[in-house]
């Protein structure tokens, strides 16, 4: 019987949560074949329903299908294939020591709740979902209500392609999210803003539910003086791509602002403008702003007259079509909202410094971002950035691409959150590493047991030094004196 997606109050949710828990406890989700079948189901869903996905993302955010493919669908299918290929290896039990037979057994953490966000509504839902399933869990997914077409797509299709009893979608707004958090989960992954992150973690504390929080931040991009014209153009291509071609800058890992030497700033701005003109020949190539609320928020960032007067390109905005032109600002005041809040939109402040190294002092007091970007060929500067700054990740000479790399963990630090995923890290995030030791009953160290005396104390000291020879001799009564451990 096909189950309708659940909405509504805590009462209905109680039944849903209990049902999912029952399925998990039946042991079904632990089976390797089941896990593989779910991942294959996800791959099939995205391949067979690709057009429907593109339509949903276009309806929600005005994303062009190539952007949707590049950032969401394509990335996801690659990630799912990687999971399928490596799943057996991740679930394997490594033997740690012999002959004591000690091992670490990864086991599913249990019933997982995933809150996804509206800007990458498919990716931020399905990436963690696939990892949670790969790790053998049952999952409840709460997609963001601010991307309703994608949420509806997931609600309609996930039950068709996956085990509908073990994977549930719950639609609705913040009250539904709060209702879900009244229940006990074995792990909660939340992607969104810090305010809601605090609420989630506070509610999770009541049940001792571990959480992972993927929060926002202002991701800076340091641009060093680049002498080669061609390399400079490549850098600018990548900056423009990372700011405006990714959901119009509405991405947690989009470049928020640029730091550049004041002498180099005019060249950079010129290249940015010409590249923008070359790339965005049609308005459809850039996603739109999510809704009026965010449009107004962004427009307000420019309302401050000190900020408005720093605009060097763009600034045009159309509330009816929810579009804001790619906008570049030069040295807006550092205490303005645009420089203290996460922008999450197509506005790019450029902050100038005297020399590139000054960027490090600029960044140190700031909250730790999800990513720090730097375009530079200076090896010493690269090492200094790695050693002297702290962020979720650091990417040199490109931006955003680290999101698609399966071999590195993705997540924040400090204000940008905690908990990491992608690739095998998602599997680990949703697993419990159970330590297991198997001993035999016939190798016995008598001196473990009371009553305790000096002889036993000596033998124990030897054992703790792993001084087996001495130990054996002592046991055989062939060695008298001792070394202090």
């Amino acid at each position, binding site marked *: 019987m096909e189950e309708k997606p659940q909405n509504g109050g805590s009462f209905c949710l109680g039944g849903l949560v209990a049902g999912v828990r029952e399925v998990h406890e039946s042991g079904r989700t632990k089976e390797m074949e089941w896990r593989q079948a779910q991942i294959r189901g996800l791959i099939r869903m995205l391949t067979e329903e690709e057009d429907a996905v593109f339509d949903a993302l276009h309806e929600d955010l005005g994303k*062009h*299908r*190539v*952007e949707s493919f*590049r950032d969401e669908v394509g*990335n996801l*299918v*690659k990630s799912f294939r990687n999971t399928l290929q490596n799943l057996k290896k991740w679930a394997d039990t490594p033997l*740690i*020591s012999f002959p004591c037979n*000690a091992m*670490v057994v990864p*086991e599913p953490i249990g019933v997982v709740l995933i809150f996804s966000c509206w800007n990458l509504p498919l990716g931020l839902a399905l990436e963690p979902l696939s990892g949670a399933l790969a790790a053998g869990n049952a999952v409840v997914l709460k997609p963001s209500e601010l991307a309703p077409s994608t949420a509806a797509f997931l609600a309609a299709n996930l039950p068709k392609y996956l085990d509908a009893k073990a994977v549930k979608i719950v639609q609705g707004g913040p009250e539904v999210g709060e209702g879900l958090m009244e229940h006990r989960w074995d792990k909660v992954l939340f992607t969104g803003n810090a305010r809601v992150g605090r609420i989630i973690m506070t509610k*999770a*504390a009541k049940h*001792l539910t571990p959480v992972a929080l993927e929060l926002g931040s202002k991701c800076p991009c340091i641009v060093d003086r680049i002498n080669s014209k*061609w*390399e400079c153009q*490549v850098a600018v*291509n990548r900056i*423009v*791509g990372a700011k405006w*071609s990714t959901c119009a800058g509405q991405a947690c890992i989009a470049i928020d602002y640029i730091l550049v030497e004041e002498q180099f700033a005019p060249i950079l701005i010129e290249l940015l403008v010409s590249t923008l003109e070359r790339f*965005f*020949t049609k308005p459809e*190539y850039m996603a739109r702003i999510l809704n009026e609320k965010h449009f107004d928020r962004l427009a307000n960032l420019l309302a401050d007259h000190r900020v408005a007067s720093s605009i060097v390109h763009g600034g045009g905005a159309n509330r009816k079509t929810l579009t804001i032109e790619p906008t570049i600002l030069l040295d807006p005041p550092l205490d303005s909202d645009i420089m203290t809040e996460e922008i999450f939109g197509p506005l790019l402040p450029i902050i100038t410094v005297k020399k590139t190294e000054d960027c490090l002092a600029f960044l140190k007091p700031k909250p730790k971002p999800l990513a720090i970007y730097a375009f530079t060929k200076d090896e010493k500067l690269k090492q200094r950035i*790695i050693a002297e700054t*702290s*962020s979720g*990740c650091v*990417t*040199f*000479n*490109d931006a955003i*691409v680290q999101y*698609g*790399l399966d071999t*590195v963990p*993705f997540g924040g630090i*400090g*204000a940008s959150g*905690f*908990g990491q995923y992608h690739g095998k890290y998602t599997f680990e995030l949703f697993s*419990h590493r*159970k*330590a*297991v*030791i198997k001993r*035999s*009953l*016939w190798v016995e160290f008598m001196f*473990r*047991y009371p*009553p*305790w005396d000096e002889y*036993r104390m000596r033998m*124990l*000291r030897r054992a*703790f030094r792993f001084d087996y020879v001495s130990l054996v001799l002592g046991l055989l009564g062939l060695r008298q004196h001792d070394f202090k*451990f």
Partner: protein
Amino acid sequence: MAEEAKAVVGELRASFKAGRTRPAEWRAAQLRAIVRMVEEREQDITDALHADLAKPSMESYLHEISLAKAACTFALKGLKNWMKPNKVPAGVTTFPSTAQIVSEPLGVVLVISAWNYPFLLSIDPVIGAIAAGNAVVLKPSEIAPATSAMFAKLLPEYVDNSCIKVVEGSVPETTALLEQKWDKIFYTGSGNVGRIVMAAAAKHLTPVALELGGKCPAIVDSNVDLHVAMKRLAVGKWGCNNGQACIAPDYVITTKSFAPELVDSLKRVLERFYGEDPLQSADLSRIVNSNHFHRLTNLVEDKEVAQKIVYGGQTDEKQLKIAPTVLLDVPLDTGLMTSEIFGPFLPIVTVDKIEDSIDFINSKTKPLAAYLFTKDKKLQDNFVSNVPAGGMLVNDVALHLANPHLPFGGVGDSGMGSYHGKFSFDCFSHKKAVLIRGFGGEAKARYPPYTTEKQKILRGLINGSFFALILALLGFPKEKR
């Protein structure tokens, strides 16, 4: 109090920002200093543990001092390697590029310790925090005041005080500390306080590691060398702080038919270990304070429970001593079976078939540790596969905490996060992904204007196709002018 807490954090933050805790030499120096402290002041430590818990010196050595020293030496040996960036494959999509994972310290961390292993549970996480390059505040448990005072006095004599501090106190001082912003909080103790710690941490979005308790079950099958099993069970229960240990077996499950033999063997072992009058044995810890003493005696006050005692039951309120006590088939709804005992009572639960014990365990919250005594391989596999627990042992008890290659920690109600060995280092580190690209490998297919040709190439590129990579690198699709 709030001012003091703020000042402590402020000082540590300044030291951390100044980079004092980052160099390997500093970390190694602190760890070596702790080793020296353990060696030179072993007697002071043993005395404090005896004052707090009447802990036998053998237990102090075995369970606290030697393990603390081993943790330091293990960290000293591994430190350089652990600190090295971990190179990982970077894949076709970002070709050419290199990727690595860099471990960096979280910053300023708070370690709140427990009273039952007051030395080890304080110093062990602190060792991990130092190895990972953090500044750390240790708040020892006030319920073990001698050990707390010992830390406050000794630690500053050995380690760098500008980066490692001890703050003594009870609820008000701990609350003041919890109001500050930390980069991680590591708490060992009860679930109730664990909830308070996590809620406080939530205000600052601070990640936490919680090492909590639970009812650790021990299944004893009839297919077993019973005498050896009982010795190991007994030393794991009463030889661990007289049952006041998070990983001590809380209760035993066995079959109805095997129970009499088990009880018999256990009685003999207990008499061998502790003599006919266990309250006089120097090898048994006392109960930590009168609060806990009364909590425990209340558990067996009920007549229905008291009549199930098959061995022991003696108590001495003046000395805060309770003898090893075994009970058989107490009602399952009494406090003894619904809450963590944390004391010298061992209820034995009987089932019809030994396999039923698995469902029994799973009907309760996930324990920190689960134990099974059997030679039956099938039962062993069933146990390992189907009982979620922090850690488990077959045919022994508690040893896993001494193996630095195994992660030690709980799951569900028994906690979150793990440590020991390199896991301690990881617990207090941030794993920062670093991707290094050059300017080569520019794929125009990524950028607008978007065309179907670009999508085709992207499809191949994202899927790791070398052919698509070549096409992309050669500048396909060629842009129409």
